[in-house]
């Protein structure tokens, strides 16, 4: 049942030009960034090779590329998630799901996995760029997969937060703006913690702080658990919120 809802969500995405536009725009921008990064790497390559323990192409091209991808997708994921529940509420198609023999959990999980499916396609296309370097050189595959995992987790977290925001309002635009605000806030929340020495509580909450180690290839279970908790929290909140829609209020 979850699969069915997820597939319909994915199908509807591709029936509208939005999905194609998002795929095209992200690909073009990241491609440009990738090529620019690669070019500057080629310029510095000779000087870097004399240094001991110098950063390789994975550090200098792939990590910045995936970090850039995370920022672009921070802007794009709210556009994907905004319609999830709010548009169904507005077009009164939510009735179909509510009167069908499916639970609220199945509805939320279906919607969530549908968007995640789309983002996986996007991630695959982004991953093709670093992988194309394999044609000419050797890259640190371990670091690449750690960074891709980080990007996937951060996207999954964005989606969960966006989904929750979509259950709060009937207006897709409001859902988009508020989820964008929330995500950006969680991104920059560590700014306040930077002045004091060491790790502050605020910087621990930052989405970015847990992404950076993964980009560097440091796989820490604490970071993974942070993302899983983040996703779990917003999914549970969405399910609760959906149940609440039916209650007297």
């Amino acid at each position, binding site marked *: 049942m979850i699969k*069915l809802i997820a597939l319909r969500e994915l199908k509807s995405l591709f029936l509208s030009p939005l999905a194609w536009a998002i795929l095209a725009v992200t690909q073009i921008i990241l491609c440009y960034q990738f090529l620019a990064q690669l070019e500057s790497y080629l310029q510095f390559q000779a000087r870097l090779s004399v240094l001991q323990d110098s950063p390789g192409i994975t550090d200098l091209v792939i990590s910045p590329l995936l970090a850039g991808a995370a920022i672009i997708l921070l802007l794009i994921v709210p556009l994907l998630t905004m319609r999830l529940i709010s548009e169904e509420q507005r077009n009164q198609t939510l*009735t179909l799901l509510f*009167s069908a023999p499916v639970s609220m959990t199945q509805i939320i999980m279906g919607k969530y996995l549908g968007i995640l499916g789309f983002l996986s396609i996007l991630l695959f296309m982004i991953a093709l760029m670093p992988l194309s370097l394999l044609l000419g050189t050797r890259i640190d595959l371990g670091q690449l997969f750690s960074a891709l995992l980080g990007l996937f987790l951060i996207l999954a977290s964005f989606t969960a937060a966006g989904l929750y925001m979509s259950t709060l309002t009937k207006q897709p635009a409001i859902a988009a703006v508020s989820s964008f605000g929330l995500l950006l806030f969680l991104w920059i929340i560590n700014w306040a913690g930077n002045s004091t020495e060491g790790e502050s509580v605020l910087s621990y909450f930052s989405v970015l702080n847990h992404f950076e180690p993964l980009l560097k290839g440091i796989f820490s279970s604490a970071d993974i658990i942070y993302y899983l908790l983040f996703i779990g929290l917003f999914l549970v909140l969405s399910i609760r919120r959906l149940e609440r829609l039916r209650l007297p209020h």
Partner: protein
Amino acid sequence: MEREILIEVKQLSRAFVKNKGFYGKIHDQTIAVDDISFNLQRGEVLGFLGPNGAGKSTTMQMLTGNLAPSHGSIKIGGLDLMDNPIEAKAMIGYLPDTPPLYKELTVDEYLAYCARLNKISNHKLQQAINTSKERCGLTEHGKRVINNLSKGYQQRVGIAQAIIHSPDIVILDEPTVGLDPIQMIAIRKLIKELGETHSVMLSSHILPEIQTICNNVQIINQGKLVFNASIEQLNHHMQTHSIRMKCRHKVDVKKIKLLDTIQSVEIEQNTMGDEGDSIIIHCSHQHSSNDSSLKDSLLTEKGQNAAIDLSQQLISIAEQQQWGLYEIYSEKQTLEDIFMSLTCVDPTHEARLGARLGARLGARLGASREKALLETTEEARQGADT
């Protein structure tokens, strides 16, 4: 034989909060549905009537699990909708007032999605889609995108969606809105068919529609159930109690009054412009509505026969006296009259509504008839006593 009860509603209420103050303190609330109880049996078609905002859609939304009730319980096929929502919802097909359509899909894709949502297995899928398309006259539109269909066709897709898993209970919120007359007749036929094996509950503003397809009628007004009766009882309510005749020449009223079962005779202003008369004759076969239903139907039949006898007598008199009779028909109280008399209790409300809709006359007519009905029963009782 007692038939299986598919929906059992007990003291159902739903309140909406209008203004929520600080600290979640409720300041003002509207009660949309107030203490409604009823049952729906298998093979029954239940018509749900009421003015706008009476609580029809709210009740239907609660029955289908789209709204949680404030109080009361709903049992679907013996299962509590709150405790076993998934099992209970599997027995229901629901068409809300706005059909829940994903407009970017084609009809076939949409129906396949609905069928799978309702757990129809893959090998039965195509057959289920074909049957429901055929039933709703959509066979030739399977490949079209829903957004490009006209409103009437979208409504058909909505109905097809509600019956795709052949549920035990079909709940339709104004199913014939936006349909052309031919399709309306087809849908009514479909609802009757469904009513034979399943149970159907529908709301409508078209009163004759309810009269032709339902075997039970409920009228809801301001959240309260004000009328709940089978269509037989309703017909009894609506039985002939007056005969109207139009004649070309002057009519001797005394001659008519000599006949038995005549209650009163009224002469109407003639609209034809000649000296002829238009006459309303009230018959005295009214009886108390407190009798049991079996007795009622017998009495109704008796009353109907009396009305036939009376009209035959009138025709023969008219022929003898050469009144030039050219029109005679029995008047029935329509469902509209009952509807109006039940839903317009508040006189100020009635006046407001009447002024706006120009329906005041109808309401008064209904009210006066209701009164006449009561008076005649009262007189009949007194007659019986003496």
